[in-house]
């Protein structure tokens, strides 16, 4: 299964977009088998830093951290299947959040 297939299959079930007036959010379930540990966290925070706008990541029932901070992300202790919410604002937010949500859905440990 390609990454794109996996995304399109998972998206209807566990990702949804909330269009607000300014802040945009995406809530997804983590795909990596061992959660957001070193490698998936690295890939994700690199992508978040490259986006160039402030993005936050909130673990449902937990803290909110800067999505570009690998330490912040690792310290949330996010496991496989955990629900997290991404948030950003600005013109590019929609594209950026889609891309980041896709990274969270893929199983980087497979």
């Amino acid at each position, binding site marked *: 299964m390609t990454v794109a297939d996996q995304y399109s299959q998972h998206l209807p079930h566990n990702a949804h977009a909330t269009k607000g007036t300014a802040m945009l959010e995406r809530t997804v379930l983590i795909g990596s088998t061992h959660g957001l540990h*070193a490698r998936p966290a*690295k890939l994700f925070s690199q992508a978040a830093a490259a986006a160039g706008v402030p993005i936050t990541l909130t673990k449902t029932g937990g803290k909110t951290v800067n999505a570009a*901070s690998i*330490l*912040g992300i*690792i*310290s949330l202790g996010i496991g496989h299947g955990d629900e997290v919410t991404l948030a950003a604002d600005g013109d590019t937010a929609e594209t950026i959040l889609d891309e980041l949500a896709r990274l969270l859905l893929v199983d980087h440990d497979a």
Partner: protein
Amino acid sequence: MELQGIGIGQGVVVGRVVRMSDPLPDPVAAPSALTPAEEGDRVTEALGAVAADLLARAKRAGGVAGEVLEAQSMMAEDPSLVDDVTLRLAAGATAERAVFEAFAAFRNMLTELGGYMAERAGDLDDVSQRVVARLSGVAAPGVPDRGQPFILVARDLAPADTATLDLGQVLGLITLDGGPTSHTAILAREKSIVAIVRAVDAADLTDGDEVILDAANNLVITSPSAEQLSQAHACVAARAAHALAPVSPGRLADGTPIPLLSNLGSADGAAAAVALGAEGVGLFRTEFLFLDAVTAPTVAEQRFEYERMLRAFPGKKVVVRALDAGADKPLAFLNDAREENPALGLRGLRALRASEQILRDQLEALAQADAATEADLWVMAPMVATVEETRYFVALARELGLKTAGVMVEIPAAALLADRILRHADFASIGTNDLTQYTLAADRLLGSVAAFQDPWNPAVLRLVAEVGAAGAELGKPVGVCGEAAADPLLAVVLVGLGATSLSMSASALADVRATLADFTSEQARLLAELALDAEDAASAREAVTTMAATFLDSSSRSEPSRAAHPRKVLK
């Protein structure tokens, strides 16, 4: 000049020395003489430099190691960390102390999370030390990166050091501390790195010294002569040829089969062990599933790992040891009581009985994995002292559907009553490392008593003989899975004492296979008798070495490889 130590394996290597620097002391928590802005500039420079250095190393390393280094590079410039450091600087801390405390705060968070996250704590410590070193103007601690292979000299290596050790750069290891069962020694055996531990005088070696590291003869030769160098290079070539010999099942010169098995600490080494001719697994350690875990892994999690390993050995014997925790590997959920003498405390089967559900889950997972795969699964209990414990474990294993259940013989009491224990157990497996530690009453992890940790000691061999005799009498297999089996000549002696299979690090298989093929059963028995009659380990080794040479000389078989055998040629 020659430095004495304890050689690991049979290898010889020539190279230049690089010393590993000692860990830095914690920066003092004194108020800074600089302004927060000035300290902030220092931090920015140091974080940037360390991040750039780690990124450059990541590019050179590539692969999994490169990924870890790249993640570390990002940790060095992490925005959350920078925020935390800035707060601490504003409160008047020095750059060194602020960086140290900020990393420590994140480290504690990761440690509390446990599991995969906790394993990253060591990565953070490493970054923290690098930044503090940069700020203090001293060399970064840890394993140096020289761009060309070297012989690493260290006081001892911590698991965190070896995890990030670029093995492609390390020709050999010399440690000042540690014994033959230290972490360094185990790593060296697993990765086939030529090593000498407990080389106390290696403290005088300096960066760039050329040395010959001769593990077979327990020596480091400093300032070697041209003649010594050419002999060493000949040894290296001869041993390389040895390793290229085709792999075949282990057998004595008279054809008696002695299956040669591998010790494994996770499923990852299985393919390499098969390639080196392992005829199965004689000791599969299951601690890796439990270490760093806050709670015991589930049956499903365990089953996944067991199946992964069992699938590498279809139709072959795989002996799995139940969780052996305590003493050197405490586990919070099993036994976290402080004990005066943990090696003599609630460990091995004793700890499992006290938390029986953990043992039941493990055996259940093993039974499920066994049913789903083709390997011939045997299970054994660690640290068994009594007949009653044997009956308990065997009954529980049977109840959970495991067909072959045995015990480790590591405690002298179990060896002395092996005839009674083997009436209940399907097999015995002798763990020579612990058996030696308990027989000589010498902590195997304590460098100052490392000299006692010698399995050639006739007292240890006599206990092995007890188990061998009981196994022969009752027709039950007796394996040896300690590192003693990896010493080729001692392996012959163990067979002479009644061992029916030998299990060792896969890297030792080639040497042991070649040496077993040189001796008949009768000769192995004679060598065993010589060793049993000796007064101490050194004289046992010497008597056996001399007699073995006589057997080989009198043998009419032509042995072209014999002249090039590495042992003793440097003397």
